[in-house]
């Protein structure tokens, strides 16, 4: 059996001494898996994604990617780094941080160029990605002058052009209008069918059924509260309440979490399932 895409053993991370952002996280991500990282604000989802992307080195524990140990030292080896960066792409939560080139075309070309793809291939990928995301009209515009949704698309394009096997997303659907959200979900579905591994951090529990088939929940203590198939994880209402992920008025209907608005005018009896 092929080595897992990521294997983490007791991984911890501290931004400041004594303030853990992640604590003893163990996790396996298999090829082709769609994993959702869930947790309340500040539970460490983004930090975990940064560690998976090889952008932060864990303060403790072991991490292996594609069967090889991943460390800051290994990533200093340019050959190893090039292979790793080609295989793992990350779309950041803040598109502004991700868009730094003078125009959209250069932004999309940045990854393939720096990962030393042949120039003809770079040009082809830039064109194809512009087409795929409908960005042709924006090709010569400066990314920092685009709207929020357009920036997100360009950020996505800049990563897709690398054609990574593993796609890491931090809040992919945030700030997108419903139509673009739907479009993105369908695109991720197609990429999954093509065998890509997808790991995403999100708060949108209602979209999860279409985005992931397994879920990992980080508790407010920055440890793994649960990891398993999506349906099982979401069915555990007590746990979701305990990690402050849902509101006490949230319900599970046919596998999807719903919450209803409650008008608290006067006293009323209300039962939760």
């Amino acid at each position: 059996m092929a080595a897992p895409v990521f294997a983490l053993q007791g991984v911890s991370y501290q931004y400041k001494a004594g303030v853990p952002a992640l604590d003893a996280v163990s996790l396996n991500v298999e090829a082709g898996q769609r994993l959702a990282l869930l947790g309340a604000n500040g539970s460490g989802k983004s930090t975990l994604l940064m560690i998976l992307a090889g952008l932060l080195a864990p303060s403790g524990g072991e991490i292996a990617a594609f069967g090889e140990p991943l460390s800051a030292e290994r990533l200093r080896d340019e050959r190893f780094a090039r292979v790793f960066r080609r295989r793992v792409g990350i779309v950041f939560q803040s598109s502004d941080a991700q868009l730094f080139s003078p125009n959209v075309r250069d932004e999309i070309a940045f990854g393939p160029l720096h990962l030393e793809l042949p120039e003809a291939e770079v040009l082809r990928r830039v064109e194809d990605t512009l087409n795929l995301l409908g960005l042709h009209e924006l090709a010569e515009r400066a990314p920092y002058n685009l709207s929020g949704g357009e920036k997100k698309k360009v950020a996505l394009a800049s990563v897709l052009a690398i054609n990574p096997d593993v796609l890491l997303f931090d809040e992919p659907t945030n700030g997108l209008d419903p139509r673009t959200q739907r479009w993105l979900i369908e695109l991720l579905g197609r990429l999954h069918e093509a065998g890509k591994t997808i790991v995403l951090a999100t708060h949108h529990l209602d979209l999860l059924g279409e985005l992931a088939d397994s879920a990992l929940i980080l508790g407010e203590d920055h440890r793994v509260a649960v990891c398993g198939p999506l349906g099982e994880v979401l069915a555990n209402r007590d746990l979701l309440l305990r990690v402050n992920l849902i509101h006490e008025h949230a319900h599970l209907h046919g596998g999807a979490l719903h919450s209803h608005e409650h008008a608290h005018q006067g006293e009323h009896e209300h039962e939760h399932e």
Partner: protein
Amino acid sequence: MPSESGNNTPSPLTAPAAGSDVPVWLLCPQAATPAGSLSSKRGSPFLEKTLGGLAHLVAAAFDADAASAKDGLLQRLDARVKVVSLLGFVVAAVLAHRLTTLAAFVVLAVALALASRISLRHFVLRAWTFVPLFTAVIALPAITSWVSPGHSVLTVWPAQHLAITTSGLLTAAHLILRVTAAVSFAVLLTLCTRWNDLLRALRVVRVPQMFVFVLAMTYRYIHLLVRLLSQMLLARKSRSVGPASAAENRRFLGASAGALFGKSQVLSEQVYAAMLSRGYTGEVHTLEHWRLGWLDLAWIGGCLAGLAVLVSLALIPGVGF
């Protein structure tokens, strides 16, 4: 995420702290008539001015981007050729002694701007407003007989023998023309070259990598920081009525400078991470083809011919350029 009413729209809420009831005053409607006396005070001029300044900065960047994308003479030249030749023009203008040569350089700069489809107004505003005017102020004492004795043109203060002299006017004209020509060529270079090409060309002419990198990052951040700052100012504007006191403005400026510094640090770390994740290892690559075309060759030929004329003039004793 707000919950949508009535239609069972799936939208799980993140739990607020238990027992946090909405205070009663928050549920009361706001009175439509002003509570106090009506005043004709406008919004804070400090805010308006700063917001206006920021908007102007963004507009200037738009203009520069638009100018470098035009299909003009200088835009078509290879960035390396442009950097070397225009910097050469700057050096030549600084070394020139004859008024006619200096004037010819200024005319050349204007001709190049026109050939590069830059509007004259835009060019004059960018190149000739600040630096040459500032130089003119500095050169002001030099036109008088106190600094440059000589034939007097206009007597200003007879008792002190203060007059404007021809030699003084000539000295000032030299200084101002020299600065104008040098600044014009520098502005032409930045206006007609895409930022990334300029950076790459600077690498080609051996400007240190770290210097180029810092320049690149600075430019990338300016836009984001300007947006952050204008959002902070707008947020304040939305919550304030009438002009604020100077002390309040100072406090606000201090606080926003601190907040901006913090934000920019976080952002810089994220940008660097984003660059690393897409294969950045310290060397910048761009899509451009660096191939010299016939236009570049013709340009190089023209520049060399000009250089030959200047050198031969310099070599003739008593002539110079």
